Every structure is written in structure tokens, then in C-alpha cells.
């Protein structure tokens, strides 16, 4: 049984990276189909970070971003978060609605719905890949949306599992849209018990 994230072996980390790769690959395909544009992914990352380190990694606490959040339950519990910065938002909005935005204040209900939908489709594609791979069932909540300081958005998964760990694990990757790299964070934060279960299901943990 894994007690904390630091105990993960390199084989386990590799497996999680593979999950990240397949998951974000699926999400990129879904995004590509939805927008009718080419979308690929860069090398996915698995990161285990302290709270303050995680906030620096995402680009500082006060920068404003949009976040689409879905909670997972069933065989694996956790949170999936699509952190959408302005570049990704504009790529989505210009393709879907023919008009981008200069700042987050301009987001109207229609644009928000588009972003939620895209976030939800990417998250669902990721989770479908994950559950297919491990042969498990995962239920998802309806997506929730917020535009605010990204530090506060990122503390949602931290606080949810803060009673179990001092670290946040994220699996995710950037998208390359039409040959241009667009910073994007599609994050999966599983709870520790689920992570253990998942690794055993995939046959890489003997615990």
C-alpha cells in the first residue's frame, strides 16, 4: 500500500506517465474532432510537488485563468482539472465562435459554455482512456467552471486530499494546435488510495 506519493517507484511513475500520454492523447483527439483542427500533445509529465512549488510551476498564484473541474468517483476517486489560459481559450473561441477575447472579463455565457464543453470533452476522453486501460468504472460529476486566481483554483485538489498528503500529484501535458504549442494543463489528481488501486489493476504494484 502506497502511503505517500514519494514512495512511488520509477516503474510506477513510468506507468502513470503512460496513462497521462494515452489520456491526453485521447483528449487531444477529442479536441481536434470538435474543432476540426490538428491538435497533438507534447511529452506528458508526471509531477509530484509541494503546494507552494505547484503554484510556482503553474505560473504564480495571482495570474487569472479559467478552470473546468470534474470530480471522479467509483473505482478511482480524484479530481480532474482543465486549466485554460488565454491562448487556449482564444484557440477554442476563434475556432468555434469566430471571435477571441482580450481578457477574461469579456467571457460571456456563450463563451463560457463553449469552454466548459471543451474542458468536459477533454476530461471525459482522458477518463474513458484511463478506465478502458485499467478495466475499471469511473463516474464523473457535471463540470464546474471558475475564472479566478489560479493559485486558488489549484488549491482545490490540494485541499481535497490535503488530509492524506503534503504533496500534489499531477499528470498532464501541453497541446500543440496547428503546429503552435499552446500551454495547457489537463490535470489528474487521484486520491492516494485510488492511485494504489489503479497501479495494482495495471499490474505494476505488488502491494
Amino acid at each position, binding site marked *: 500500500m502506497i502511503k505517500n506519493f514519494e514512495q512511488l517507484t520509477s516503474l510506477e511513475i513510468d506507468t502513470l506517465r503512460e496513462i497521462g500520454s494515452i489520456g491526453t492523447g485521447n483528449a487531444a483527439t477529442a479536441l481536434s474532432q470538435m474543432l476540426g483542427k490538428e491538435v497533438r500533445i507534447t511529452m506528458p509529465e508526471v509531477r509530484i510537488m509541494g503546494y507552494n512549488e505547484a*503554484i510556482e510551476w503553474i505560473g504564480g498564484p495571482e495570474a487569472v485563468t479559467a478552470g473546468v473541474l470534474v470530480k471522479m468517483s467509483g473505482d478511482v476517486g480524484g479530481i480532474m482539472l482543465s486549466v485554460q489560459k488565454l491562448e487556449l481559450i482564444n484557440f477554442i473561441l476563434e475556432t468555434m465562435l469566430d471571435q477571441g477575447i482580450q481578457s477574461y472579463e469579456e467571457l460571456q455565457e456563450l463563451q463560457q459554455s463553449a469552454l466548459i464543453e471543451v474542458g468536459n470533452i477533454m476530461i471525459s476522453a482522458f477518463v474513458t482512456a484511463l478506465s478502458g486501460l485499467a478495466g475499471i468504472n469511473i463516474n464523473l460529476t457535471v463540470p464546474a467552471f471558475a475564472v479566478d486566481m489560479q493559485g486558488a483554483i489549484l488549491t*482545490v485538489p490540494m485541499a481535497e486530499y490535503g488530509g492524506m498528503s*503534503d504533496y500534489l500529484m499531477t499528470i498532464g501535458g501541453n497541446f500543440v494546435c496547428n503546429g503552435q504549442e499552446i500551454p495547457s494543463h489537463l490535470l489528474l489528481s487521484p486520491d492516494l488510495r485510488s492511485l494504489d488501486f489503479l497501479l495494482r489493476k495495471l499490474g505494476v504494484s505488488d502491494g
Partner: protein
Amino acid sequence: MAEQKLTVGIADMKMLQGEGILVTYALGSCIGLCFHDQRLRLGALLHIMLPLNMEAGRTHPLKYADTGIKETLKAMEARGASRSRMTVKIAGGAKMFEIAGGSGLGNIGQRNIESVHAILKRENIRLLAEDVGGKVARTLLFDVGSGQGCIRSYGQKDIIF
């Protein structure tokens, strides 16, 4: 001399005396607590994440409202602060995401607020002002000389308290 400014991270606490600014960024469901002893011009800013410390052998007391407040009081008292003079202002405890179908997720902020209230009462510390709940993130600045706090939120006017 340039004014001193210290940043308080998550599950962290810092103390200053005389003058200077303590700041903690992007409080979501977390709560920032500004402890102040006016006579000593001594101030501490604590950033907690969860309501109660229920784990054995953990090394992060400042992550939790109960153990975080205790540690901060201990540090303030070690510098000569007195509980009868001490005041506290708090900010945070927001609900960042509205998840349909409930679940405990969005309620951490509310639980943090309730826990902080209960612990301050139990420790006999006067709660002077608060700006809690809602659904916006807050950056909290605390001037240890005057005891004044300032809350910065996205798309809103600053609140001085």
C-alpha cells in the same frame, strides 16, 4: 529603509514586528489569519488549508486551523504578546467551484470558517473583522504596524479591513 514585505505560503506562518507587510496570495477555500498585538506592533499571518489536524505523526501543523492557530499563538506569546490584547482578522473560506450534486468538495471553505471561529473562541482571541465565504479568491495583505488588512480579489474593488 525600504519597507519589509514577507510572503506567507500555503500551510505557512510568518511574523514581523515594528513595521512591514505580510502577504499571502490567492486564498481560495484556505483561510488567512492576521494576528496582531497593537502595543508591541507585532503581527503574524497564518495561511491554513484544512479545519482539523486528525493525523498522527504529521509534520505540517500549520496546514490545519487547530494546530496552526496554536503554533501561531505560541510564537506570538514567546515574543511577549498577550492574549487579552491580541486581535485577529480573517479572510478566505471561499467555494471556488459549484459542484452539482453536492459532495464534500465545495464545503472545505465553510468547514474552515467554522473551525477557525470555534478555535478562536476556545482560545479566547478576539475576532475583530472578517471577510469570508463567497466564491472569489482573495490575496491578503497585512500591515503589522497599523494592524490594517487589505484584500485583493479578481474583478473587485480592494477591501480594507
